[in-house]
């Protein structure tokens, strides 16, 4: 009886795993077959208005990139503060918890917040509003990974640094952060991958535009929002373009994830 139950259990787990993987495989298969169908040179050279995706891809990367550039120093500094300066006080624990809560906050709520503080007063959607929304989503992720990675740095290393007369600042920047560099880089890449695929917080902050634009003060082209719009259009050609966009987006996210993985593996093998 025990052995029969054991067999049943193993079969069930394997079956559950298989079911899950089949669905996930189905999604990827769809994505690749539909996405590759519409892939052509035009997608990268024409803007959305002419049936390409150039402007929205550039727009998406620009917004995510700028959010990342601002988010990196803020997130890393905050992580350093939590781990190196505020060690174990109650307020540090509180900030750490808040950061975790923020990391899991629904992204649409962040969009709502930005809408209220930027779009309502200025009266129109803008690239900067999108950047701010993505920035807010990103910072807690960087804070968390920096915090975790610095936590892995052996305490002896800090003590050794202090023992040879280095200041706290020097120990932190030149020893601790350097030691944790690869892990932090991975965290940044993963955070970038996470925000570059965000749709919900952009829908009414950046909006989306069919035209080429690098002016962040106006409505800004966004790949994800465009995918959302294209996919719900009655025109088959538009839907196809949506799939192509979805394929490109996923490929981009997966590549960045693999890069992040590679960065942290390289460190481990050292």
């Amino acid at each position, binding site marked *: 009886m025990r052995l029969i139950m054991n067999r049943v259990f193993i079969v069930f787990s394997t079956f559950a795993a298989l079911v899950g993987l089949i669905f996930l495989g189905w999604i990827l298969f769809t994505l690749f077959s539909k996405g590759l169908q519409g892939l052509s040179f035009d997608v990268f050279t024409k803007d959305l208005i002419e049936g390409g995706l150039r402007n929205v891809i550039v727009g998406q990367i620009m917004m995510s990139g700028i959010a990342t550039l601002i988010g990196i120093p803020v997130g890393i500094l905050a992580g350093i503060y939590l781990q190196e300066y505020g060690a174990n006080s109650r307020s540090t624990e509180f900030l750490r918890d808040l950061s975790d809560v923020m990391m*899991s906050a*629904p992204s649409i709520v962040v969009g709502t*917040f930005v809408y209220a503080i930027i779009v309502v007063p200025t009266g129109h959607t803008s690239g900067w509003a999108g950047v701010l929304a993505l920035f807010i989503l990103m910072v807690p992720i960087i804070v968390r990974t920096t915090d975790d990675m610095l936590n892995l740095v052996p305490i002896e290393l800090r003590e050794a640094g202090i023992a040879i007369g280095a200041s706290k600042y020097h120990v932190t920047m030149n020893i601790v952060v350097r030691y944790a560099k690869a892990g932090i880089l991975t965290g940044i890449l993963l955070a970038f991958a996470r925000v570059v695929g965000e749709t919900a917080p952009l829908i009414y902050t950046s909006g989306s535009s069919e035209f080429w634009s690098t002016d962040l003060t106006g409505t800004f082209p966004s790949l994800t929002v465009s995918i959302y719009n294209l996919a719900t259009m009655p025109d088959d050609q538009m839907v196809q373009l949506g799939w192509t966009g979805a394929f490109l987006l996923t490929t981009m996210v997966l590549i960045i994830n693999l890069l992040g993985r590679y960065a942290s593996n390289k460190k481990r093998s050292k």
Partner: protein
Amino acid sequence: MELFFRKIAQLSASLVFVILAATTIVLYLSAKPAIEEFGVKFLFESRWGEEEKVELSPTELSDLESLEADKGAPINDDFIEDDDDFIMDDEDFITDDDMEFGDNKSRVVYGALVPIVGTVFSTLIAMLFSVPIAMGIAVFLSEIAPGALAKPVGIAIELLASIPSIIYGMWGLFYFGPFIAGLFGGNTVSLLVAGLVLGIMVIPFMAALSRDAITTVPDMLKESAYAMGATKLEVIKDVVFPYARSGIIGSIILSFGRALGETMAVAFVIGGVYQFAGKVTDPTNSIPVVLANSFAESSGLSLSVLFYLALILFVLSFIVIASAKVYFLRKK
């Protein structure tokens, strides 16, 4: 330099708090007109954007009645003695009231009950579907599959967890929805489809986190259970799950929170209509989807209502995450 660095780091850390506080305050302020207009009843009202004549609800009515009765009782004994009279008076009263308020006779009513119910049910369906499968995957990867299979599949699961949710939504709309409709009948967009797509979306996330929790169980502990003559099922049930319990429950709660606030995976497939799903195969609505679809055409009170909804969602997810944190903290 030292001090400056310390200050600027502290400032960055505080920014997290500032943003969170600002979000709460701004949402509250923007929602204030709606909160004042509808109060807590907003949570239990199922109509959305319908005009209604201003009538006093039965409770208000009876409040006024008793008020009237209290006032009337000592002065006019006839009032209580004569039932017919009482009713007549009552009707008179309403007419009086209508005339008094003149122009304000109709207003637009908003209520959050439909999207709240939709959010809760789609999330529950998602959890019912994803928990057993994600646990199956986690156990399979950590205890059953040989290493040569577990590693690539594990990496694939982690990569799938990073796929943007909009992809799941799109796939749901064009492929999975019709598939489910073919299987169970009903619409290609429905509560059921939304719940299942949400479930599929959180499976990799939950499975990866649970697997991480399970792999923290020391090999030696498992071996010592096997050395007592336990089978694999018994080792997992009696040793692995109890040992990794807080991590596994934490992963489930985090996935729950993610499903609760998810917009894009649901927006395509839930239907976006303000009605309860009588059957699970009927379309309905959820809070994030209402938010995603309605901002453009809203202003004034209807906009404030959306902020009220966002505030509700924010508080809900806050509670979920906070409870996950409590569980994670217990471990330490």
